[in-house]
């Protein structure tokens, strides 16, 4: 029978359903034979989850076995308890488990502790009265003590303060463990009970975090462990790593930090990728406390960033994420975006995209850069990022710099408009990004006067048509169209709708979506109005102006009074009416839905005292609601005031600007009033047609000033570094001074037009050569030469930079010398293919090429692309001459006329 059950386990393990046999496993738990019983329990724990129907059959067996005289039977039952008992069945076994805490066998005590741990995980309240049992650490058996640490760790993680008294005991236990007081059987690779040490260090890290007094008790023992650990074995390093985690979590101590930094540098210098990984992780922990230690490890970090190993790379990005400052944000975010584009894993893509956004929002050096970065993020991961990000971007464009600098704002907007007009034609843009595009084009497309209304509307129509299945995008597009037309009318220009626009609107006014219909009809209505009316409905560039709406509609008081005098029924607030809960008030509809249709488990709350809607004054903060200007008709409808009729004429009377409490996110942190705390009661609705809520809550604590300061300080420190890594650790602002830190400068300055920028490029690439020679283990980042094949970069460090320089400075050699170096076979194939595509202007003399191998073919590559491979330029002159000769002969030109331009013309 046992064999069959094991087979069943196999069947499940290989992914097939074996539920037909579960009952036999359950039956086997009744068996008298110990081995069979335990196998039965094992099978049951593997097959069933705690909510399975068969559990009820097992509980009885467990109860019986917990009473058994044979401790092995008790252990088997406790194992099953740990896996199978759910919240409802805990009371059935709890008393017995508690009794077993005093069992004479340590194995049973240990498992009983773990069973309680499991109960705590399932339902903390069920074992709350037993928590004191965990505090008894003084069990004689180290195994039981070690097991007790698991539940204690969980408890301390939840609430560290009530366990501060145990710090002394933990420290003394750790000391004893480190001094090898435990039995030898717990040793692992000559380390005394390393797993217990690690768990104790984790607990100490929790207890010492932010607590100076507790931390001081720990310093000695942690220092001891740092000294004693054997750094040649894996397990020793594991303990060391845990020490670093502990040191970085507790109140900092300079000596320990130093020891930690030493260990980190050893990890990072190690050949083992595992240790590098741990080193990077440890570094990112320690960097919070002492940012300066990153300096010495720049190269190692860059190394890990370039590593082909994905895991290491991600860990390094995590480190970069933590060390981002305003000085290096551009480099880091660029890197992140490049990496984000290169991966397919959606889970990680989402994470890294949100990190990019976060960093960009926090540290953006300029609005222009921010917009460009956001565009990139949206383009490649638009559907994965939070929609809030899109709203933030729109708000930024709308608010501009937040200062009175109108021209700068205009520039920003027009650059945004331009970039969007460029992007808009691309297929497969994510929906969130399209919404931003539509909104920006609608709001600012015609603002600069650069683009005509018909051009913008044409583009918008294209968007709406191209994404006909996406209602949200279409809605944004229609609203944008409406705005463009409204601005045109308001400016006194005559509007003639494009035919495709007209047909679009007609199609949408018969749409299945009521929202689209409404927008379409609104547009049609707006177009027929005169300029004055339109200007009031759709004021130009008013998206930032928040408007207060009087939710209580006190302006209607006189009207109500009049009606009452004429004998109308007075309004009875909804909570005073019985039996018609859902009918009139939309505000509480959701609450009531849940309360009437589902069972409630929590206690009933006290009845709310809601203020009668007509009485309370406007200025009460909780009852004010900010809604947008331009569409006064339906924000009001969709919002909470719907219980009171006839709001259509209210728009202009009670609306006034309210700017206090609105934080200017970009530019200096200026709050127009200290009333930012009111932001939780008022929900801001920014900008026309953008349904956005809780804007103000997203941007609470941005301390930009401090980051500006740190930028300059950081710059000074890093100016000493003549390493490639400096751009990451120092700042791009310093790169001009240090031509060696060109990892990104180069990438940017090498435009495809090599001929024009030969001087600077030559300098740039030669200096990178120098750098990469200095940093022998370092692979130059692909950006350095990101124009060419990856094979180029790997051999670059071996090149003499000065030769390279020569080759570049002489324009006649540039084309020929470039191809010379180690042109391996794969590249030869490449070159051949390039050649074959080429109009060789009637010359068919390739075969007759006197030069050996493929040098002649290589020459045919136009100068523009060959300079990419300057890494190989060695410039051996005799060969050069030969080659040139061959080339010239091929082209049918006399050798005397060495004019590179001629070649270029010929070769196209």
């Amino acid at each position: 029978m046992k064999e069959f059950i094991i087979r069943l386990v196999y069947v499940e393990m290989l992914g097939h359903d074996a539920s037909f046999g579960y009952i036999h496993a359950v039956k086997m738990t009744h068996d008298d034979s110990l081995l069979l019983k335990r196998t039965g329990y094992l099978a049951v724990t593997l097959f069933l989850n705690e909510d399975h129907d068969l559990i009820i059959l097992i509980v009885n067996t467990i109860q019986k076995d917990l009473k058994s005289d044979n401790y092995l039977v008790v252990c088997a039952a406790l194992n099953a308890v740990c896996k199978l008992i759910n919240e409802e069945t805990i009371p059935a076994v709890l008393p017995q488990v508690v009794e077993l805490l005093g069992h004479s066998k340590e194995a049973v005590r240990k498992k009983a502790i773990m069973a309680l741990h499991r109960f705590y995980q399932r339902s903390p309240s069920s074992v709350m009265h037993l928590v004191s049992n965990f505090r008894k650490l003084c069990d004689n058996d180290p195994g039981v003590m070690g097991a007790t640490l698991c539940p204690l760790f969980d408890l301390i993680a939840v609430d560290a303060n009530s366990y501060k008294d145990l710090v002394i005991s933990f420290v003394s236990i750790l000391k004893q463990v480190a001094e090898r007081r435990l039995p030898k059987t717990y040793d692992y690779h000559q380390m005394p009970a390393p797993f217990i040490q690690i768990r104790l260090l984790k607990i100490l890290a929790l207890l010492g975090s932010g607590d100076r007094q507790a931390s001081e008790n720990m310093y000695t023992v942690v220092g001891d462990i740092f000294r004693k650990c054997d750094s040649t074995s894996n397990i020793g390093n594991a303990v060391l790593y845990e020490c670093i985690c502990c040191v970085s979590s507790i109140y900092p101590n300079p000596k320990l930090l130093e020891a930690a930094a030493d260990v980190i540098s050893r990890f990072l210098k190690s050949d083992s990728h595992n240790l590098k990984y741990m080193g990077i992780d440890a570094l990112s922990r320690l960097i919070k406390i002492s940012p300066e230690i990153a300096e010495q490890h720049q190269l190692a970090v860059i190394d890990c960033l370039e590593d082909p190993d994905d895991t290491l790379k991600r860990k390094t990005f995590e480190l970069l994420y933590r060390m981002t400052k305003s000085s290096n944000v551009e480099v880091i975010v660029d890197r992140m975006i490049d990496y984000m584009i290169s991966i397919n894993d959606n889970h990680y893509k989402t994470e890294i995209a949100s990190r990019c956004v976060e960093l960009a929002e926090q540290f953006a050096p300029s609005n222009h850069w921010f917009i460009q970065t956001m565009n990139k993020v949206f383009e490649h991961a638009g559907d994965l990022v939070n929609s809030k990000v899109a709203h933030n971007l729109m708000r930024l464009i709308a608010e501009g710099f937040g200062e009175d600098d109108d021209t700068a704002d205009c520039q920003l907007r027009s650059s945004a408009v331009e970039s969007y007009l460029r992007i808009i034609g691309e297929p497969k843009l994510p929906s969130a990004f399209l919404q931003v595009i539509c909104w920006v084009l609608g709001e600012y497309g015609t603002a600069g006067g650069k683009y005509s209304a018909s051009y913008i509307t044409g583009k918008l129509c294209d968007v709406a048509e191209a994404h006909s299945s996406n209602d949200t995008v279409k809605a944004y597009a229609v609203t944008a169209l409406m705005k463009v037309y409204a601005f045109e009318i308001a400016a006194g220009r005559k509007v003639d709708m494009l035919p495709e626009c007209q047909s679009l609107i007609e199609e949408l006014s018969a749409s299945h979506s009521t929202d689209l219909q409404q927008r379409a009809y609104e547009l049609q209505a707006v177009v027929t109005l005169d300029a004055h009316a339109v200007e009031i409905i759709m004021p130009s560039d008013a998206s930032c102006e928040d408007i207060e709406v009087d939710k209580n509609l006190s302006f209607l008081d006189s009207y109500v009074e009049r009606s009452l005098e004429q004998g109308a029924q007075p309004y009875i607030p909804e909570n005073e009416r019985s039996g018609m809960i859902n009918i009139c008030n939309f505000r509480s509809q959701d609450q009531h839905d849940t309360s009437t249709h589902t069972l409630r488990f929590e206690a009933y709350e006290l009845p709310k005292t809601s203020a009668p809607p007509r009485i309370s004054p406007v200025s009460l903060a909780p009852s004010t609601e900010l809604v947008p200007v331009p569409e006064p008709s339906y924000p009001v409808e969709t919002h909470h005031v719907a219980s009171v009729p006839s709001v259509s004429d209210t728009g202009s009377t009670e609306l006034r600007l309210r700017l206090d409490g609105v934080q200017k996110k970009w530019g200096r942190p200026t709050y127009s009033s200290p009333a930012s705390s009111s932001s939780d009661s008022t929900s801001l609705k920014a900008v026309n047609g953008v349904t956005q809520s809780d804007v103000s809550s997203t941007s609470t604590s941005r301390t930009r000033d401090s980051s500006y300061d740190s930028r300059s300080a950081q710059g000074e420190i890093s100016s000493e570094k003549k390493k490639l890594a400096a751009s990451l650790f120092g700042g791009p602002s310093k790169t001009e001074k240090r031509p060696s830190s060109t990892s990104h400068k180069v990438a940017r300055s090498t435009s495809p037009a090599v001929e024009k920028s030969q001087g600077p490029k030559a300098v740039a690439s030669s200096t990178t050569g120098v750098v990469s020679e200095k940093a022998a283990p370092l692979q130059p980042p692909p950006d350095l030469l990101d124009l060419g094949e990856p094979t180029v970069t790997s051999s670059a460090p071996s090149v003499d930079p000065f030769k390279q320089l020569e080759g570049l400075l002489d324009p006649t050699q540039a084309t020929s010398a470039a191809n010379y170096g180690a042109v391996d076979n794969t590249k030869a194939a490449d070159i051949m293919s390039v050649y074959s595509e080429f109009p060789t202007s009637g010359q068919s003399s390739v075969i007759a090429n006197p030069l050996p191998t493929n040098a002649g073919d290589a020459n045919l590559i136009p100068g523009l692309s060959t300079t990419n491979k300057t890494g190989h330029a060695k410039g051996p002159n005799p060969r050069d001459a030969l080659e040139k000769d061959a080339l010239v002969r091929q082209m049918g030109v006399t050798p005397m006329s060495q004019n590179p331009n001629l070649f270029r013309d010929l070769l196209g």
Partner: protein
Amino acid sequence: MGIRFILMVNKQGQTRLAQYYEYLTLEERRALEGEIVRKCLARNEQQCSFVEHRTYKIVYRRYASLFFLVGVDNGENELAILEFIHLLVETMDRHFGNVCELDIMFHLEKAHFMLEEMVMNGCIVETSKANILTPIQLMDKAS
């Protein structure tokens, strides 16, 4: 919670032992195993023994034809888990004497018993080989 699952998979990608410390349905297990086994088997010796997969971190180690994969939470010490795998193998070595894939295939329950002694609720509770093996030896004797 620490350890979320322990898998032993051979070079062909066939599961030889699977123990989960949280409940997943059969389908979820199959998908998860497929994905992570593909990820881990594709890596070479030089790359580090840790792989991120969704919310898990997977620590793996290869012994001859058998891969040991342990899925852990983010807070776990990866290097320690790597050594835990080795401890597990040492323990099995001591019991089976030079353990190989076949030992685990034909004594699946024993391998599970050892794991049950070493890991409970996703925590490492016992690291003394003697303590781990005593109950198993006693059971062998009794039957």
